[in-house]
């Protein structure tokens, strides 16, 4: 099919008023959730999915893209107003935002956040548009060996790149993989860990699990930490037009925007690492190469530019491995993969050949919703003072209500609520004890593919493990996986054997 025809079909899919209205409403919802401290972009997506379940693929994806992108920007608003990041992706530069606001430059901080987020978001989308089809063409030659190693690479990245404590991240990943083994075994058809429950035959329901881990656990954490006696916090005053002075900031820091966006897209594309890690890393890189590193954290706009561009660029970057290989770049795309499967739009290189109009429609939605961020963001900033006055003790029970009906809707039975409850409690306990929950979702999403590809490869090779390295790309991917593990084990052993001098000295004193 000629490219113009594909583009025209995609445009017709996106120009549908239902898609535009859905994207607008989901964007407004994402803005609201992102702006409320304690509610994350992943939670916004998880709460939206039960509704997208009943939509066609394009409006469903439009809703997710709009909500996640807007939520990442909106997280900056309470950061500047209350010194509380709305989402973890805004935490890296919250100090600078707030101090700028206290200096009377609230609008400069938020205006810069908004425009740079939009530029970063567009950068990430263009990286996605450029990289995904190329990678898909390349991936068409992949067999089960390459997919096995890709899944292994994704799982390994989640442990060693995206976590401060690789051991706990690894255990969280094992929990996710173990949950993925529940249900009928894909090769032999034997029921595993179902304990006679018919509901478990199809496996652990993914969306209720997500709602439990990312929404119910957050509600549980939120209600026990409510502080009833504290009066509403004072917010810094607004100072005129939102975008006044922002043009000057952008003109003074074009290199920071490009560097932050590039870093964000690359980190977003790495499995397991999302917008929050992109923001932290680009803030650190920005400080390292700045002429005034001492000004960071005191109300300096430079780090804010780098990190704001990075966290929104990561949103588009995370879709690259998700669309091309079915490997999520972050928690939001883990949900997206689940939605793609539900909609019969199985992620992988073949979707680029069989349904290119759907892929191009997704790209168009990305551009549209990223541009939509500017007017919606403007409204959100103007309305923020009122929105942030909604007390958490009103909001959290309403979120809980949506969690319950959302989980029910995915199975049309209380079984969905049971899964949500179990995973919510598990997620809460794990996070309280320093185990990250994002690897659980990665394990749950990739577990099936990992096992299926391994078994297929074993059956094809008659049990010969050497066959996993016979094909050149498989060998390179396999070597990369072994290298990551080798370096991690080497580092851990070296740390263990290193004498603990400071501790001993302290003990001596």
């Amino acid at each position, binding site marked *: 099919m000629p490219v113009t025809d594909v583009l025209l079909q995609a445009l017709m899919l996106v120009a549908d008023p239902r898609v535009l209205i859905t994207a607008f409403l989901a964007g407004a919802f994402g803005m609201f959730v992102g702006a409320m401290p304690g509610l994350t972009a992943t939670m916004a997506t998880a709460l939206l999915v039960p509704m997208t*379940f009943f939509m066609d693929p394009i409006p469903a994806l439009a809703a997710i893209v709009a909500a996640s992108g807007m939520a990442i920007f909106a997280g900056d608003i309470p950061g500047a107003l209350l010194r509380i990041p709305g989402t973890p992706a805004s935490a890296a530069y919250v100090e600078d935002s707030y101090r700028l606001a206290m200096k009377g430059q609230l609008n400069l901080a938020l205006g810069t956040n908004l425009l740079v987020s939009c530029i970063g978001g567009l950068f990430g989308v263009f990286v996605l548009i450029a990289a995904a089809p190329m990678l898909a063409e390349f991936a068409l030659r992949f067999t089960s060996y390459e997919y096995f190693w890709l899944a292994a690479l994704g799982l390994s990245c989640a442990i060693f790149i995206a976590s401060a404590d690789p051991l706990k991240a690894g255990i969280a990943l094992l929990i996710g*993989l173990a949950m993925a*083994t529940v249900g009928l075994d894909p090769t032999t058809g034997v029921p595993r860990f179902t304990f006679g429950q018919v509901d478990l035959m199809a496996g652990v329901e993914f969306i209720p699990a997500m709602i439990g881990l990312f929404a119910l656990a957050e509600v*549980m954490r939120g209600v026990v930490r409510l502080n009833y006696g504290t009066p509403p916090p004072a917010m810094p005053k607004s100072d005129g037009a939102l975008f006044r002075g922002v043009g000057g900031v952008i003109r003074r820091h074009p290199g920071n925007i490009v560097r932050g966006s590039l870093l964000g897209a690359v980190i977003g594309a790495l499995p397991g690492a999302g917008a929050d890690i992109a923001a932290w890393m680009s803030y650190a890189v920005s400080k390292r190469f700045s002429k005034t590193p001492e000004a960071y954290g005191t109300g300096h706009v430079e780090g804010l530019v780098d990190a704001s561009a990075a966290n929104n660029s990561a949103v588009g970057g995370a879709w690259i491995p998700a669309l091309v290989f079915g490997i999520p770049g972050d928690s939001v795309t883990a949900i997206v993969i689940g939605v793609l499967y539900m909609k019969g739009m199985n992620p992988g290189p073949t979707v680029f050949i069989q349904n290119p109009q759907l892929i191009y429609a997704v790209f168009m939605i990305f551009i549209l919703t990223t541009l939509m961020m500017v007017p919606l963001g403007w409204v959100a900033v103007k309305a923020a003072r009122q929105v942030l006055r909604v007390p958490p003790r009103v909001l959290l029970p309403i979120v809980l209500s949506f969690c*319950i*009906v959302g989980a029910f809707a995915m199975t049309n039975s209380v079984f969905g*609520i049971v899964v949500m409850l179990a995973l919510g*409690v598990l997620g809460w306990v794990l996070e309280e004890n320093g185990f990250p929950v994002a690897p659980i979702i990665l394990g749950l999403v990739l577990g099936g593919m990992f096992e299926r590809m391994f078994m297929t490869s074993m059956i094809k090779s008659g049990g010969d493990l050497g066959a996993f390295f016979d094909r050149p790309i498989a060998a390179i991917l396999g070597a990369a996986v072994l290298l990551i593990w080798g370096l991690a084990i080497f580092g851990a052993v070296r740390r263990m054997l290193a004498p603990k001098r400071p501790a001993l000295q302290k003990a001596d004193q």
Partner: protein
Amino acid sequence: MKLTDALSGAALILLGLFMLWQSAQFPSFAGTAYGAAMLPRLLALGFVIGGALLVLRDIMARRHAGGPFVIFAPELRRVQGIAAMAAVLGNVAAQILLGPQLGYPLVSVLGLLVLFLVLRLPVWQATLLAIGATALCWWLFAVLLRVPLPRGLLEGII
């Protein structure tokens, strides 16, 4: 609720052993060492090794600094914190246990009312919010999206 890593590790070792025992009952392909049991066995070994490493790490850390094995977060030591957590979990459990018989709307309004009151909202606000939130969810999911939320005692009325 914070457990020490030694306790978490021990729980993971038990989980690994349980998975090993369960997976011993899964069949393999004839004449091969791999089949339905392979991945669960590998994961079980992972839990045992990971759990043991957590225990070891904790014991080594405790040589320098002791401390209790279970620490309740300060919020959960207050009656208010426990009541809030119980009300959240109670809401979910009530929908599982009572929802199919009494119906989603009734259980939701009562559950949310209790939760709002536990979170110290005035009665009139709690009542309005509980009814409003339930009505919104009902309209979005049962009316617009046609999700068969249980009507229970209100069957035939709504």
